[in-house]
């Protein structure tokens, strides 16, 4: 398993992912708070017409 990597993934890249994930966690939390606040204020973002999801008929979220 996982032994057929045919390019250099970069050890530094993999170590850095922990830090990136921490930053991403903060970004997602911040966005969530903003969305909740906007919801309270009645500000709703219009759904994008040309989003990635509009290109596929079904929901793209894998359950």
């Amino acid at each position, binding site marked *: 398993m*996982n032994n057929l990597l045919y390019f250099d993934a970069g050890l530094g890249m993999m170590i850095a992912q922990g830090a*990136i994930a921490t930053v991403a*966690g903060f970004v997602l939390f911040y966005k969530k708070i903003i969305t909740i606040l906007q919801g309270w204020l009645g500000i709703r973002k219009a759904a994008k017409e040309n989003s990635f999801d509009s290109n596929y008929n079904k929901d*793209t979220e894998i359950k």
Partner: protein
Amino acid sequence: MRHPSSYRDPSGFIFKKDGKVYRQINPVFFDEYNAAVSSGIYNFLFDKKWLVRHKELSSNPSRIVLEPEQLDFITYPYEWSFTQYKHAAQLTLRLQIGLLKNDFCLKDASAFNVTFHKGKAIFIDTLSIERYKANTPWKALKQFNQHFFGPLLLSQYHGSLHLKTLQYSINGMDLNEVKRQLPFFSRFNPTVYSHIYTLSKSDGENDTNHGISNPSVELSKASQIKMLSALEMFIDNMESKENTEWSKYYSVTNYNEKSFEFKKDLIVKWNKELNSKKVIDLGGNDGTFGKELLAQVDQLIVCDIDQPAVDQCYLEHLKNDSNKLTCVVNDLLQPSPAIGFDNQERSSFNSRVIDFAPDLCMALALIHHITLSGNVPFEMSAQYFSQFSKYLIIEFPDREDSWVEFILDSKREARHLFDDYTISAFAKAYQKHFNLIKSEKIVGTARTLFLFERL
């Protein structure tokens, strides 16, 4: 025979037999493949239209052979518009997130693993899917940033030229190079900082040479999903601010409404007579005229040099939910060459069009650019078009046309070198390669539409 593009991954390879594409799986990948089959992950992704369909043809101890759905025309990353590139990046991230939730993952994130089929981005490398090993970071993150995020960022800041990155750097863009070209303030964005500035510090180093052969680096699945979700959200919000005269061509062109409709009707009428099912519209701008044929054809490729125009074509197509259209950014004066190992890994645009074998090639409002701006003689452009299809619909703007006048005026003292740009010289040269079936002047313009049949 092994396909020249399929040599990097030891798990298997693509081969061609009797004009059809097949995939061989080597024994070293049997466990991974069988795990994916028994989990139902392939079928799930087929239903999503995210992964190219395949069926298993044969299985023995030395190899498993799959027959994937045959794709008539493959586009490469350096032929995508900004939104296409963005959607291909999002597909890769969505796949990785979705696979993680099902205890699988992508072992690589090459942009060449994605193409456009039936108007949608689709993942075509079945053997990139393997089982997820608990708490391992995503080994393909560096490759994702080199192939997708770097070129998209640079394109957003500096223009669509950077979407061509993989044409001259097939393994993606060095993140240090991306960092050097980003504006100073970009480092204050946490996503850009972490994926480009942080990761660039380790890019270019060969970590395996540091005596660490089996490093144990851990990252929880939940953390990885957060990281990829934030990246996908950032990419989803990216926009190209690039705009050119061509993407608004039809709002400023010298056609009046009557001429415009006349030209549309004529193309539809002629194509109905030809009964063409596969059409390529070269210099098709935003697909305004090509799309008139969608009701008649099975497949339409719209190709243009102008990234914003092609992007507009793609965006319009998303709204209309047509699955017949493929959009390609390409400059016919320097179409995508064959690149990669032995110049065979990725084939040239011309050879892919020839393999696609369109019934009809359209070149509307194109010849004056090729001839006057590109200096390509009529004989050469005629020969060029004749290699693609039996029929050619081509529009000739005469010297009185305002665009032609504009280009000729820009030649200044060299204007006389283009005195041969006349409708009779054009018709004569093209009849060395084609039979003229008919021609008709577009009312209210100095333009004539020709229908040719290859000799």
